[in-house]
């Protein structure tokens, strides 16, 4: 039995309102909501669904193709993981998390550019409220201001394109915008880029990330770095590789900004001493890489980078948030040997770090290999050079952290377990199970990368530049 995709939005949204009324049952409502969505996502009907009783292209539509299918799986499964790892921290935020989940599903599924704006705003409002968990209202306010500027710029860009194409439907806009001269598209594209860049954590709109993620806990860290970030990048991919394909000028602008984001993120991560800061700058870098790939048209490797980053950051941010809570610091020098008596968390963190760096036998290797192969096949050598240089920096800072967290004591001396910072449990039992499951997935998909590849791109695309099949063209409905 297949279900209507609108249920992925309606169920959490309805439960969010119910949770406001039945405060005592909030925990159950959240658990049921996120679990139901994570289960139902595998039974959603593919294709384009018109909403509201109007005919396409006048109706708002939801599009579930291979691309958005990956998006909704990431969003729903990772939200379930985030809630399971930090269930106790969700107490005050049940309606917010559920409304956010509705917004995220809407963002990934929608086939209408204005509806995308509405869902982005719903998601953003839930994100602003979640960020207030960091007890730094000025940082949440800063995030709100940057988000508001971004949304006004997005709306301005969108309305300029609407003025030229006369439609808000993505598939029709894709057809009509292809006929418009490149010069007329540069300004709207740059404005829309600025709007999406806020949630996607791309320069110059990523100013909020340090304040918000730098003060995150096991719940908010995973939500921002894994769930919101993945959805925003999938939207970036939808818009810039399928709807409004940038011409030469706009393409160069976006790719240069994305690569600068990647490079600046890696360098800033290398210079940071706090664990969460290293991770947040690493997230910015990964976003930059995925955005550069999308803007070049390499959808398949970009989706692999997003999956790799989402899985890795889920483990790492939940570990970092819990470490800070248990030991009162997230300066990794002060956390020497924290993993010695926390083997499951330590091993999971290590595997996630290796996967993000792109070492063999884990999923990240397959992702990085595809990134490099895509550019080298095209005959571009500059970008692979930047990616490799970034990877070396990435490897350096992750190894530095791993050494500190596994081996207490001074450099050059024998590390003894007694020198470690303590033996407080990093995860609760449910958290440990979730983290181990995600780690096993990273390892398994490292050994069987083709199966993940086929999930991302059933029509091929392994080690190539063909993306997931896309059904944004109304009449065709199926694969393009």
């Amino acid at each position: 039995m297949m279900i209507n995709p609108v249920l992925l939005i309606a169920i959490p949204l309805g439960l969010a309102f119910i949770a406001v009324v039945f405060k005592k049952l909030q925990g159950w409502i959240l658990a049921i909501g996120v679990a139901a969505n994570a289960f139902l996502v595998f039974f959603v009907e593919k294709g384009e669904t018109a909403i509201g009783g109007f005919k396409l292209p006048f109706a708002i539509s939801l599009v579930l193709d291979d691309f958005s299918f990956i998006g909704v799986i990431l969003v729903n499964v990772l939200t379930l993981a985030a809630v399971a790892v930090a269930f106790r921290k969700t107490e005050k935020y049940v309606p917010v998390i559920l409304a956010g989940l509705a917004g995220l599903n809407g963002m990934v599924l929608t086939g209408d550019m204005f509806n995308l704006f509405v869902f982005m705003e719903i998601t953003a409002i839930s994100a602003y409220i979640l960020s207030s968990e960091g007890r730094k209202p000025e940082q949440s306010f800063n995030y709100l201001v940057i988000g508001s500027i971004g949304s006004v710029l997005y709306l301005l860009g969108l309305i300029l394109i609407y003025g030229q194409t006369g439609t808000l439907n993505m598939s029709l806009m894709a057809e009509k915008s292809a006929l418009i001269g490149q010069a007329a598209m540069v300004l709207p594209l740059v404005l829309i880029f600025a709007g999406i860049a806020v949630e996607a954590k791309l320069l110059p709109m990523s100013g909020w990330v340090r304040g918000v993620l730098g003060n995150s806990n096991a719940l908010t860290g995973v939500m921002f770095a894994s769930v919101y970030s993945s959805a925003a990048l999938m939207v970036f991919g939808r818009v810039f590789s399928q709807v409004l394909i940038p011409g030469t000028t706009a393409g160069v602008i976006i790719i240069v900004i994305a690569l600068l984001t990647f490079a600046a993120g890696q360098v800033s991560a290398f210079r940071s001493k706090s664990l969460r800061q290293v991770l947040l700058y690493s997230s910015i870098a990964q976003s930059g890489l995925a955005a550069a790939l999308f803007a070049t048209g390499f959808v398949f490797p970009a989706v692999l980078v997003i999956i790799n980053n989402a899985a890795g950051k889920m483990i790492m941010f939940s570990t970092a948030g819990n470490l800070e809570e248990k030991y009162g610091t997230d300066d990794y020098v002060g956390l020497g040997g924290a993993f010695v008596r926390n083997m499951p968390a330590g091993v999971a963190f290590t595997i996630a770090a290796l996967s993000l760096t792109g070492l063999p036998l884990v999923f990240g290797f397959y992702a990085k290999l595809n990134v490099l192969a895509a550019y080298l096949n095209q005959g571009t050598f500059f970008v692979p050079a930047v990616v490799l240089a970034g990877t070396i920096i990435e490897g350096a800072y992750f190894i530095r952290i791993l050494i500190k967290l596994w081996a207490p004591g001074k450099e050059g001396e024998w590390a003894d377990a007694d020198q470690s910072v303590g033996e407080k449990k990093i995860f609760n039992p449910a958290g440990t199970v979730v983290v181990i499951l995600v780690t096993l997935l990273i390892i398994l998909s490292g050994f069987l990368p083709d199966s993940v590849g086929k999930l991302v791109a059933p029509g091929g695309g392994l080690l190539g530049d063909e993306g997931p099949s896309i059904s944004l063209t109304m009449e065709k409905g199926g694969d393009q």
Partner: protein
Amino acid sequence: MIKFASLLLIIIGLYGILSTRNVIKILVGINVMEIGINVFIIAMGFVNDGAAPILSVDNPVNVLKFVDPVAQALVLTSIVIGLGITALGLVFARKIHKKYGTYDLSETGGES
């Protein structure tokens, strides 16, 4: 003309946001920007001597004279979202004042 005026409003709002560290004034700046973009959207759908886009037998109107109803629907949604953002911004402003005793961001301490 209205389009240029609305773009000017957006720029004034942006200047307001960037030139002050007072939380309330920043929120006013955001609102000015939002009004600017809303007027711009309405101006995009404007038709000189236009009519409301309602087809009726009693009052036949040249379809080409209809103003764009999509733009108006968008603005309604955009206004509601703007209201939500402003309300949330004011909550944060209140929290900042409660914690630091000031609305001035430059007096709230360090960056992180």
